């Protein structure tokens, strides 16, 4: 994305790659149901959209601001458990619960992010990892509230007496959420805030001497990413009708980071491709039975070795190279 923007000629056309990405995502979401043979495909696509939403958010933190979080699934967990705990234990309807969960997730990100973002590189990674593990531990241990390691059911959403259910309904809900998420991310990327974040990624020192408040901006990106993740978590829980602490697990966090990097850091479309690959590939690889884990690991290595910028930026690069 950044690459495309970088080489496009002057002022008036700077908006266009942004629009292209948005239109592309919208068209994909709109057209897929026409070609899908069964609800199962809708289910897989809905999972790609929800994961994609979280990854687009994480990409703002990793791809734009250049900060790695190894505990991002924790925010997914906050969103997911909010819609589980709210209706079950507190009598709050699902949608207000979801909004409360998203707000809580932003608040937690802000409180946790303040001290954590004084750390750099791997130290930041291990601090976010620690935070994620602590949250997952709470979700697993406080069985009275969370149902413990086996998770808990989530009440179905009811809107004006209409029970929100069915694969196609959820496909559209998650698809629209994704499109909104992508649009906002693209807006941010092209704004003064986004510019400052990108600057931070390349040289924090240079950004700070021109007045960019690095700590505040990183915190902003962290909070935004947390909001995306919590939204994704709430959608996932409502769609599944069930949550388990796996949602917030370390492995899930690692999966999100892998999605960002594989698709291509800094690229919104890349984030979606990353999510699509890691969600859909295991579905396709089931034919390999027990070789699945090994093949998936092998594919991740091969992708990263040959397209080290990530799939989308890497392929764009290859494509340009061929044309020359």
């Amino acid at each position: 994305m950044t690459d495309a923007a970088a080489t496009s000629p002057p002022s008036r056309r700077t908006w266009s790659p942004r629009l292209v990405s948005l239109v592309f995502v919208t068209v994909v979401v709109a057209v897929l149901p026409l070609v899908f043979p069964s609800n199962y495909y809708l289910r897989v696509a809905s999972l790609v959209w929800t994961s994609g939403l979280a990854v687009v958010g994480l990409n703002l933190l990793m791809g734009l601001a250049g900060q790695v979080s190894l505990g991002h699934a924790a925010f997914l967990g906050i969103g997911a458990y909010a819609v589980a705990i709210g209706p079950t234990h507190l009598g709050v309807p699902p949608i207000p619960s979801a909004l409360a969960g998203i707000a809580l997730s932003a608040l937690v990100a802000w409180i946790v992010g303040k001290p954590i973002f004084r750390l750099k590189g791997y130290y930041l990674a291990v601090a976010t990892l620690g935070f994620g593990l602590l949250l997952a531990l709470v979700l697993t241990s406080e069985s009275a509230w969370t149902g413990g390691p086996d998770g808990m059911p989530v009440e179905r959403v009811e809107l004006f007496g209409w029970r929100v259910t069915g694969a196609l309904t959820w496909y559209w809900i998650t698809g629209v959420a994704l499109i909104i998420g992508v649009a906002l991310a693209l807006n941010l990327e092209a704004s003064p805030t986004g510019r400052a974040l990108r600057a931070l990624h390349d040289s924090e020192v240079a950004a700070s001497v021109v007045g960019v408040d690095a700590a505040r901006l990183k915190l902003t990106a962290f909070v935004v990413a947390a909001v995306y993740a919590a939204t994704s978590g709430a959608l996932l829980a409502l769609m599944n009708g069930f949550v388990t602490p796996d949602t917030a697990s370390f492995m899930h966090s690692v999966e999100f980071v892998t999605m960002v990097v594989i698709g291509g850091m800094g690229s919104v479309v890349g984030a979606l491709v990353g999510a699509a690959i890691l969600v859909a590939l295991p579905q396709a690889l089931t034919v390999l039975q027990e070789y699945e884990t090994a093949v998936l690991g092998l594919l991740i290595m091969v992708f990263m070795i040959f397209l080290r910028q990530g799939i989308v930026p890497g392929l764009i690069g290859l494509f340009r190279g061929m044309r020359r």
Partner: protein
Amino acid sequence: MTATRTSNAAALEVDGVGISFGGIRALDGVSFRAHPGEVFSIIGPNGAGKTTLFNIVSGLYRPTSGRVRIAGQEATGLAPARLARRGLSRTFQNLQIFFRMTAVENVMVGRHMAEKTGFFADLLALPSVGRQNRATRAAALALLDRVGLADLADQPAGALPYGALKRLEIARALATEPKVLLLDEPAAGCNAVETEEIDQLIHAVAEGGVAVVLVEHDMKLVMKISSRILVLVQGKPLVVGTPAEVRADPRVIEAYLGSHGETEAARADR
């Protein structure tokens, strides 16, 4: 700028600054004042502590001793971003370019403090954001024009030659509308024509009322452009004076210029 100013306030005042790294005194008792409109240069052999001094003044290092004041106000140990708000900006000896952005975007980042849109406006891409982007871009293009890079504006910064990057850094620093500008070897790696252009640029910036503090190895440039010069040797101040005084000072010739420097200073004289 609300607090009382000390009399005869310098734009930048460095008072007895020193710093130690792991017990080694890298800088000791350095003091100087730079006034609006002047070019104040700091010279010295490699390892004299010039860049370290810049890093203290710009808030990257916290000094072990001494004070830094900007426009008469205490500024010791403030974070770089806060110093920038006080009107201090700088360039870097080892380039700190935003390599993944275009040249003009690099300068646009320099306009960060002047940008008025809020976070939520940015998120929703309100019309004000579009207007702000256009205004920022126009200002950045004007600055690129000023440093002679207008036709490279939309090139990725990573693809620009070294000399152009040096000037790009100056444009980015100028974008903050600084009161004090620290330039760390702006002419390094530039050919004669480019050096001449930088000379004129620095001159014009100072003319505009900015206090320019310059670290530079090109003696010819330094002697020609500076109003006063501080000579640092092994982290300690040796002399402060006009180019003529410095050139004439035997301690400088002995301690720093040496036989090689002597000829260079002589050449600069011609």
